[in-house]
């Protein structure tokens, strides 16, 4: 298995350029940049009118996504007036050791100019990343996120020498994906229960395990596994680490559900 060694010593099993809008108002520009330059992006509704702990928490979630080791470089797209200031966000992402470019819609002079600047930034990053070699991926550099607890699965994953992180308490499984990515998980195992449909995540492959036979049958194409033993799940995780796309990646699912601490103002 190979991966991309990042400046901070962690390894990515994908090599994304992420176009990250710092606020809902720059999501259209971010999407246009990503579509036109083949990068990944997230769409969200946050970034403005947060207060107190919710502000810090939201900024932290965006930084966590941007600094996930599967992300080789980030283009932060900001409007300019928002509460989560784009420049500051970009600086904090850079301070965390990630490659960043900043595009401000107000600073550039409108959407069209911002999209052009963003496209250029993505192209430069893409060239840089493509020139870097893949390296052997050490087992102890692998971090697998579980969006709900499963002791048997955890033990089987750890037996491979991989680290396992659990979802924080109090979050929905979807909300936990943001937290797991922020904790450095390169692959997320999503254990879907009764009535639960599979989700994806922009920067991490999600292995969707359908433990509700009815849902697994009904949404078969969007799951990776049905009623599967831990060995099967581990094998699927290994294949994903080695580069095989998950169902979420094949369909381009990029769900981003953010847990918030307070309402917007």
């Amino acid at each position: 298995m190979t991966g991309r060694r990042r400046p901070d010593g962690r390894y990515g099993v994908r090599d994304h350029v992420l176009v990250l809008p710092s606020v809902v108002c720059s999501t259209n520009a971010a999407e246009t940049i990503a579509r036109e330059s083949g990068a990944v992006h997230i769409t969200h509704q946050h970034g403005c009118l947060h207060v107190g702990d919710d502000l810090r928490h939201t900024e932290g979630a965006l930084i966590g996504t941007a600094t996930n080791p599967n992300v080789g470089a980030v283009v932060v797209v900001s409007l300019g007036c928002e509460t989560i200031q784009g420049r500051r966000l970009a600086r904090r992402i850079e301070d965390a050791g990630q490659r960043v470019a900043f595009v401000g819609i107000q600073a550039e002079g409108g959407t069209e100019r911002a999209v052009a600047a963003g496209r250029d930034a993505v192209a430069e990053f893409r060239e840089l990343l493509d020139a870097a070699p893949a390296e052997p991926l050490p087992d102890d550099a692998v971090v697998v996120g579980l969006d709900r607890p499963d002791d048997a699965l955890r033990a089987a994953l750890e037996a491979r020498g991989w680290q396992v992180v659990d979802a924080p308490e109090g979050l929905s499984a979807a909300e936990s994906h943001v937290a797991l990515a922020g904790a450095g998980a390169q692959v997320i195992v999503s254990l879907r229960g009764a009535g639960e449909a599979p989700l994806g995540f922009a920067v991490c492959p999600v292995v969707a395990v359908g433990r509700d036979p009815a849902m697994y049958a009904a949404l078969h194409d969007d799951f990776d596994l049905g009623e599967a033993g831990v060995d099967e799940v581990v094998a699927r995780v290994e294949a994903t680490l080695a580069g095989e796309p998950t169902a979420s990646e094949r369909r381009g699912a990029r769900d981003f559900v953010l847990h918030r601490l307070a309402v917007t103002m």
Partner: protein
Amino acid sequence: MTELTGYRRANGTWGVRNHLLVLPARTAANRAAEEIADAVEGAVSVTHEWEGLPGDPDAGLVARTLTGFAANPNVGAVLLVGIDDGDRPLARAIAGRGQTVHLLAMAEHGGTAGAVAAGVGIAERLATSIAGWEREPMPLSALAVGLECGGSDALSGITANPALGIASDRLVAAGATTMLSEVPELVGAEEILAARAINDDVARRMVAVVHDFERSVEALGVDIRGAQPTPGNIDGGLTTIEEKSLGAAKKAGNAPLTGVVDFAEPPTIPGLYVMDTPGHDIEQMVGLVAGGCQVVAFTTGRGTPTGSAIAPCLKISTNTAIFERMEGDIDLDAGAILTGEETLQSMGDRIHDAILEVAAGAPTCSERRGNREFAIRRTHY
């Protein structure tokens, strides 16, 4: 002057656009909805973070919002992309408002790929059927215009907002509806608005809705600056929430206040209203459109490109520098008042005329650029 035209829908409401909306019922359907809309000429979709988990205290609010949005008369038909039978109540609620809606359940198609294949076919048939709608002369009493400001600066309350207020007064006097929103940005202006209320009940509601918001903020015990006013507001010269609010309230001109409505609640008779929304640009826009606004008039000092997938959003800059700088994102420049090219009155008249032109079919910058921002309002976390 432009004659107002629109599409007279079966339920008696009028649309100024004729969109095919592909709407995900929950997050898990986002990707399928997006792919279907991408593949079908003229279809639009939105993306959102509503998971639809059981027991969510905001379920009613979200259902009302999605229903109202889908039922907006600017939408000729809705392809609701859901997962399974759990999404049938939403489809029924949309149909109950008199909207043409087709539910596509991903569970009947094996997942996203199958749903997209089927959905494209359905969407193409819906697109063909709504292509038959034609514009007719539309009464002004059927028009509802949202009044929004975003990326405000100190000039908002001096140029663009008062000019929009003149336009709003003209529309209301002629029998149309206009809707002010952003309760956090009316803190300090509530008494001025309450004094114009058509009766004591409306006056009381006007004051209460602002005081309730203030109490909720005090309960949080945080410094609200940075949220309200935003860093951009502050950089643009606005110092306090009251200053921002007094400027924001000018969008509502001087007309009597006919009522205060809940988030996404459509008013029953024409007039000037205040809708209870947060200050968040997109949450309020979704609320206004879900409450029936077919056009949004949006003033901005710092400049913002945002728009709605289903309603034209007319951007009016407060100053000429930003109008010139953000070429392609802003429609009108109220900074002309400062340069002397326009007076407040003549600018107000220009905005009034532009609203009608846009309603009659002229595209806004936000429509040309395909801005389709969407946000689910939450009251519980």
